[in-house]
Structures are given as C-alpha cells and as structure tokens.
C-alpha cells in the first residue's frame, strides 16, 4: 500500500543503555509461514463456500407456488410490418436521445462524485473513510431498480423537494454508478507503483502536486476502460427510469406506441436495434482504448 501522508510514530522506549541489555536475539526469526495454497486461504474459502451453499439452496428448495398470468392468449397472431417499423424510427430516435442524455448527465455525476468517494474512502480519518466505505458497499449491493423506486418515493414524500423525473433519473444513475466508478478509481490509484509515491516524498512534493501531477495522471489511463464499460452499463440501465419514473425515454416510447396502436413487436424490436447501434460501437471503442493503453505500457 502506498502510504502517502507520513504520520509521526514515536515510542516511549528509553534508548537502551550502551552494552547493558540482553543481546538482540530473535530479531531475524520470521513467523511461521502461512499456507500458500489458494483454496486453503480463509479469504478465498469462506466466500466460495457461502456462494456454493447459497446456490445449492436455490437448487434444492422448490419455488413458492403461484403463477404469472398474461392477458394475451397463447396462439394469438403476432403481426409485423417493415413499413410500420420504419415509420416509428424517428420517434424511437427521439426517445433514445432522451435516454442517452440522461445517461451522459448521470455519468458526468458518476465520474466526478466517484473520484470524491474514492478520496474520502482513502482518508486516514476513519470517521470519514468507514461511512464512505459502507455507503459505497450499500449502494453497490442494492439493485438500481429499487433505488429508483426509493428516489421516487423520497421526492414525493418531501414537500419542499420537487424534481423533474428526468432529474431524478440522472441523479440515481449518477450516484449508483459513482460507487462503481469510485472502486475503479481506487483500483487505479492503487495500481500506481510504490516507487512513484516514494519519489513524490523524496522530492518533497505537496499533496496537491503529488495528486494532480503524479498519481492521477498515471491512475486515469488504467481506469478509462472500466469507466467506458460502466458508461455502456448505465446506458442500458437508463430505461428503468421510463418504467419507474415515466421519463420520456426509449422504453416509454415503446410502451406508448403499444398502448395506442396495439402493435408491440415493432417498437420493442426497434429499441433493441437502437441499443445495439449505440452499445456495439461503444464496446468497440472501449476495446480499442484498452488495446491502446496496453500498447503504451509496452
């Protein structure tokens, strides 16, 4: 671990008197070696066992009774027409634009708030770092769908708080992905070699210079591919806002069309195409970026 801020540690030990004390005997005896087999290490064994147990429970315990029902009777004819498909295209693009905009705004929040969270979590002060760590883990381990409902209820129940649904959407996206981004930043910061931190101490650099000129410039390239993947993931999560908050995004468009024209196939297929059109090039760009960074590393 790169330890940046020197904290003075002194012991009250009296300097031992010359030549009087017992010889420094056990100085070089190392502790008994731990087992190095990975499957014996408790930090691997415990979570793996828990996961296996949990999965077995799922497999063994039968599902609770009950049925999902649909008003569509089986065998009902499904129509599809290309004319109608292309007729819907401009509306779909409008919805897609709204979804993409909420994603980008949310991701701007995620990228900056994530850095703040990463720094707070690194803080030497436990009063700061522990709650931050808890918050990050809490948000990361709850579904964004539930968070979206929670945000909606929260905004409705607080009188002085009135937010446009689209604002709620990108705030939730931003906070949710900020926790992921903060972990990515943390990994990126930890990947900066120890020697770089030591050189910063040896040159007596102040904290601001150390972070802005040495650490962050070297951490960011490592983080960019991960951030790119999160951007694509956030984009795919954004339609949840249409379902929960009724934002006028791409899913809202399809739901509206279905309700008005009773033709569900074309609009939902169009959404799929729309996401492919954005996600595939984005994934390709992220891969290019990764390859480029690997090349720079040489």
């Amino acid at each position, binding site marked *: 671990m790169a330890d940046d801020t020197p904290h*003075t540690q*002194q*012991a009250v*030990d009296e300097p031992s008197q010359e030549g009087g004390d017992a010889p420094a005997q056990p100085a070089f005896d190392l*502790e008994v070696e731990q087992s190095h087999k990975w499957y014996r290490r408790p930090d691997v064994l415990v979570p793996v066992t828990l996961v296996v147990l949990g999965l077995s429970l799922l497999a063994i315990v039968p599902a609770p009774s009950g049925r999902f029902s649909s008003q569509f009777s089986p065998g009902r004819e499904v129509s599809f027409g290309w004319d109608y498909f292309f007729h819907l295209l401009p509306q779909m693009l409008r919805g897609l634009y709204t979804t993409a905009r909420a994603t980008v705004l949310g991701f701007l929040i995620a990228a900056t708030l994530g850095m703040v969270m990463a720094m707070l979590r690194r803080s030497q002060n436990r009063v700061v770092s522990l709650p931050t760590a808890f918050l990050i883990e809490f948000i990361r381990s709850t579904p964004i769908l539930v968070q979206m409902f929670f945000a909606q209820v929260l905004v409705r129940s607080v009188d002085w708080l009135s937010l446009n649904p689209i604002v709620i959407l990108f705030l939730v996206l931003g906070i949710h992905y900020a926790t992921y981004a903060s972990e990515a930043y943390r990994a990126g910061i930890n990947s900066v070699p120890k*020697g770089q931190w030591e*050189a910063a*101490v*040896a040159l007596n650099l102040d904290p601001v210079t150390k972070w802005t000129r*040495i650490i962050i410039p070297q951490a960011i390239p490592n983080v960019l591919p991960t951030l790119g993947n999160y951007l694509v993931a956030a984009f795919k999560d954004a339609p949840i806002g249409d379902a929960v908050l009724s934002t006028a995004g791409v899913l809202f468009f399809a739901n509206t069309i279905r309700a008005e024209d009773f033709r569900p196939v074309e609009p939902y297929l169009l959404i799929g195409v729309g996401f492919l059109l954005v996600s595939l090039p984005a994934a390709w760009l992220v891969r290019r970026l990764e390859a480029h960074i690997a090349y720079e590393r040489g």
Partner: protein
Amino acid sequence: MRTNVAEPDRNDVSDKGAASVRFRAVDKAFGALTVLEDLHLDVEPGERVVVIGPSGSGKTTILRVTMTLEHIDAGTIQIGGEQLYHEPTSAGTLKPASEKHIRKVRSNIGMVFQHFNLFPHMSAIENVMLAPIKVHGVSRDEAQHNGMELLAKVGLAEHANHTPGQLSGGQKQRVAIARALATSPSVMLFDEVTSALDPELVGDVLNVLRDIAEEGRTTMMLVTHEMGFAREIADRVLMFDKGRVVESGPPSQVLDNPQQERTRSFLGAVAEH
C-alpha cells in the same frame, strides 16, 4: 498505532554541533523483524559515507528513515542540526513533528533510488523541473535553465525531451540524479543506484557520483555493492549487520584490513562474485 513522544536522550545534550545527519538511539522494526537497533550515527557536512552489508541487514532502511519513507519507532534523527521527526516544545521537550515541520526539514534531503522511480508520463526535463517549480517556487524559465544545466552535467542534454521509456537504464538513473540535485539538497542518499543496471552502464552513473563527490558540497550517504567504487569515494565505510554497525572506519581499514570476523566473511563472500 503508537504516537507517543520519544524522550530526548539525556546523553545528547552536548550534541549540539552541526552534524549533517545525526542518528540517536534509533530503533526500527517491521513486525517481529528488527532492522535498526539503538543506532547512533554522525555524518559530518560534506562527508561521504558508504554503507555495506548483507541484504536484509537494514542498510537500506538507514536511508529510507532519513528520507521519511519509513518512520522510526524510537530515537531521534537530526538533519543539519534540526530534528526530523520531532519539534521542540516551549517547555524544551520534544513532540512528534507536524507534517509541515517534516516537510521543511525534508527539503534538505534528496534521494536516488535503485529503480529510478522517474515519472514515466513526463519528459526528462519535466522530471527535473517539477520540484523546483512546485516546491521551491522557482520560475519556469529559471527551472528550465537550471534543469538543462543539470542534464548537461550528467551528459544527457540531448535527451531532455525524451520520456523515461525512451531512455536506457543508465540514462534513466542519471536523469534521476539530476532530478534529485535540482533542489540543491545538502544531503544526498543513494540507494544501490547501480544495482539495477546492465554492467556496461554502471560506469556512466559512477562518473556522475564522482563529480558530485569532487564538488564536495554535498553530504553523501551511499548503499552500494560496488566495493571498488566504495574504496575510491568513501571517507568512511560502515559495515552493517543485523541492525547494528559492526565496523566503521576509513576504507583502507574496513575494506582492506577489517578487524571484525563478520566484515571479513562478508567481504570474502562479495569478492567471490
């Protein structure tokens, strides 16, 4: 985490001279492993001290605690007469130093590492200019002028705009030396600076060290396995083993006519390579 104050050693009251580096009763352990034990050491201004000893003997730790890369467990270290890890209180006792105090005293020290630790995203000249501009408030023009002079001194003026990735190991190490010299520290620490280099590149780096030594302004503490170079450059050689100084004296004594069995066996083992 222990944050208590070391009581100043009563024996040190007379030690108010201006030794460049002064260790008093310094202890340092990593867990159960003691690496420095009750270490007392005085390095005079301009003196060149070479520390030798087997790996794991704690010799590198002497440099690392002087640079505050590791913190000492007990005792005191003074740099140019000023406490490094402590600040005097109004009552005349010592308290643990603030970050500000450490930074002030630390500005007198420079260090060169075994693995260079150059900033890979900056060119050679940017590496050299960074600390003067950011820490010492030197103007950009002046820093560049001084930086180019330093790079010329280490024979790398024509590589000023190359990044570390474009330089050989020996060139990187000479840039690292120029970078450390850029803030004109009164004490320079060299931690096995030739150990990571190909043999044919060692000579250039040693030449730069000779130049610094000849100028005689800088106190130098070197950890090295180059015994020939140690003999040539050192005013004093410290043989270090198991956290203690086994033998200390001019190279003619410690290297050529060692009094201690431990020194003899170490030098014998080194000579076999």
